[in-house]
């Protein structure tokens, strides 16, 4: 049994390491040109060599992503409350929201850049756009998810709408909020990079763009790996917060 548990734990790292070895050996034995597919060892040395540039550009992208995500969160929560609890605005706004949601937001990146210039603002705006809708739609669904028997219970106590909101709707909506946030944060990183592709002087998207343009494929790989790492860490951070806030199971 004990051995079995160790096998289970070790399985994933072992498989990953094996894949890396296969990659390394394939590239070496077929002498694949570096600009097409660099070996893992080459990517690693390049990453070390370019560490300061990777770090500073990574930080730029991280900040754009985080600021855009938090701004989207702040904007979507009141919007969700309005849509969930008011009749007329809901009937006018929600169809528009659902329509806007289907626009591929990254396709707007060139336009947003045209309107807002070259700084961080267009990148943050794109991140806000991609994050806003998944959070909004999930929170609206969450605010409406309170089960009827629980609503009846609150009503039987003559609870005010505010009291019902605080004591019932918010806790019920919380898991939905986190679902929205986890979808949004994955989109957020993509949004930031695409916005950087359009026009930028810094950021990982910019680094990927210029390194591929100069056939510096190992550096592009290193930047993509760092980007993946940022994405995974942000997702994990949200999950940590979720676990701390939602310590119940239905």
């Amino acid at each position: 049994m004990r051995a079995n548990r160790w096998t289970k734990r070790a399985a994933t790292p072992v498989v990953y390491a094996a894949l890396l070895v296969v990659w390394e050996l394939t590239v070496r034995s077929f002498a694949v040109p570096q600009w097409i597919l660099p070996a893992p060892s080459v990517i690693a040395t390049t990453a070390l060599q370019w560490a300061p540039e990777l770090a500073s550009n990574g930080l730029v992208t991280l900040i754009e992503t985080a600021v855009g995500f938090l701004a989207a969160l702040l904007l979507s929560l009141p919007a969700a409350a309005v849509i969930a609890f008011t009749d007329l605005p809901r009937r006018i706004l929600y169809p528009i929201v659902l329509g806007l949601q289907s626009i591929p937001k990254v396709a707007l990146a060139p336009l947003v850049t045209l309107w807002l210039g070259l700084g961080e603002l267009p990148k943050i705006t794109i991140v806000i756009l991609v994050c806003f809708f998944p959070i909004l739609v999930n929170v609206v669904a969450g605010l409406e998810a309170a089960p009827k028997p629980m609503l009846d219970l609150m009503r039987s106590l003559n609870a005010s709408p505010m009291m019902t909101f605080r004591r019932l709707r918010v806790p019920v909506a919380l898991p939905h909020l986190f679902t929205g946030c986890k979808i949004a944060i994955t989109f957020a990183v993509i949004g930031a990079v695409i916005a950087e592709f359009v026009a930028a002087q810094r950021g990982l998207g910019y680094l990927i763009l210029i390194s591929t343009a100069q056939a510096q494929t190992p550096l592009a790989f290193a930047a993509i790996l760092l980007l993946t790492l940022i994405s995974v860490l942000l997702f994990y951070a949200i999950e940590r917060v979720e676990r701390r806030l939602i310590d119940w199971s239905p």
Partner: protein
Amino acid sequence: MSQGMRLDGVSKTFGEGAQAVEALGPIDLVIEAGSFVAVVGPSGCGKSTLLRLLAGLDLQTAGRIARAGRPLEGPSRDVGIVFQEHVLFPWATVLENVLLPADVLGLPREPARARALHLLELTGLSDFAEKRPQHLSGGMKQRAALCRALLADPQILLLDEPFGALDALTREELSLFLSRNWDELGRTALLITHDIEEAVLLADRVLVMSPRPGRIRADIAVDLPRPRTIDTPRDPRFVEIKQKIRELIFTPAEL
């Protein structure tokens, strides 16, 4: 001071036109202050509908409902409800759940807390006060829901098949528990149940309802001495009343 209730020609229809469902009534009924009334009847005959009308959660289509001599105007803190499903909030502890009425009604914090702890002790849930409902068995959840319904000291208690989803042993245990404490509480109570034995064990009166639209088909006095105990079901009179109700339910009404 407990309160009574009075229904005059009360009926309820859901929906309109071709979709209309006549769920209940018309019903004329007087529930005396301090009495324990049980309602039995086939599934879908309008028992829950009746309870929701009495609770002020729904509005009757016709007729008048009065509580303590005054027309009913929506839900009131004088009425405690135990729903069929326990509806405890999974994110709150058992104690917080029981304290919900105090929070909503803005009752003074400390006395409410003391009362909640007392009720939890009475129902044998003291050790679970700080636990989440997920750690409770079905019977314990219903006991917690009962504590919550009693917290604000309501004059009238409405119970909608509170033990319906539980196993037979737990039901009997909770029935006896309710019976024991009933005598002290001296409140008005309306219990909906599909268990004839439970109805006879607890109630002063058992109302037998007809199939939908539910009307009161019989009103049977349970003249068994109180306190009712674990031996009550062996009383010949108990068996006799139970049999009478069973026959009423299973023989079709004469038209």
